[in-house]
């Protein structure tokens, strides 16, 4: 069955339209928005949690969004093997929901960092990175104040031994443990990353290194 993307819109999401545009007009996938108050994900079989500042980042980034009505369905879907992608604030929501291990701390510099960084693809045997070469270096923008990935030692060892680390920073911008920029869960159906591939998917926007991320995911449904 082809991918039917659903992009969750929380109050304060601000990369939802960028993602919608890329999925619909660049990747040419069936794409719809899902409202955070929806009680169902309908016929969507690929869920995106977009970037932004859901609920104003109050309390902790992603902490309140994680309890939105739709998240109950998203968590159920994810636990049944459904493909879920969290970008930036979406990654924070997935960590808060316990769907991915660890947490995103405030950047070591205390600054909001908005720039294009170089990532290394650490594992290309995932449905999220299959179109990339192993150790391929790609340029993708980041824009976050809390992107400093942290987890305990035991979790880090698991991430490493299970090949869960998909992307690392070539030059660590925020203090992330082991330069981690993006991880998948042990079951390999959930991904979270701080960089914004949807902002690097068209030549007009300065780069297309993000396109393969979405193409890999959509191709995994064929």
């Amino acid at each position, binding site marked *: 069955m082809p991918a039917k993307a659903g992009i969750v819109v929380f109050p304060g999401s601000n990369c939802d339209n960028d993602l919608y545009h890329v999925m619909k007009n660049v990747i040419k996938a069936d794409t719809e928005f899902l409202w955070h108050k929806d009680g169902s994900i309908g016929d969507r079989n690929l869920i995106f949690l977009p970037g932004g500042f859901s609920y104003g980042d109050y*309390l*902790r980034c992603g*902490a*309140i969004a994680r*309890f939105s009505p739709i998240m109950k369905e998203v968590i159920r879907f994810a636990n049944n093997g459904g493909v879920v992608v969290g970008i930036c604030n979406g990654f924070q929501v997935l*960590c*808060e929901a316990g769907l991915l291990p*660890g*947490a995103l*701390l*405030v*950047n*070591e*510099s*205390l600054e909001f960092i908005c720039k294009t960084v170089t990532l290394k693809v650490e594992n290309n045997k995932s449905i999220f990175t299959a179109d990339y070469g192993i150790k391929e270096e790609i340029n993708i923008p980041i824009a976050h104040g809390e992107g400093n990935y*942290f*987890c*305990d030692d035991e979790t880090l060892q698991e991430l490493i031994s299970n090949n869960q680390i998909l992307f690392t920073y070539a030059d660590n911008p925020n*203090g992330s443990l082991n330069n981690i920029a993006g991880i998948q869960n042990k079951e390999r159906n959930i991904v979270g990353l701080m960089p914004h591939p949807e902002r690097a998917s068209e030549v007009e926007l300065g780069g297309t290194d993000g396109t393969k991320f979405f193409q890999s995911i959509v191709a995994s449904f064929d």
Partner: protein
Amino acid sequence: MYKSKISISVRKNILDPQGKAVEHSLKSMGFEKILDTRIGKYIELVIDASSEKEAFDLSEEACKKLLANPVMEDYTIAVQKEGEQN
């Protein structure tokens, strides 16, 4: 009625860059005896409970489920009868 005062801070083994920045500033102002600074957040809850224990347990449940993230934060809870002076 009880009031629950909850302090949340970054876990001890995690770098608190905000605390460090303030600590450096305090040191440069001459506060040499201040050895460590950590910054967190403070939350007050007013709870309709029939005992201090019930108020404490509810506060702890709220911390575990929403108010604190155990991966990165520690918390302390102090419960008092509403209206009592601290």
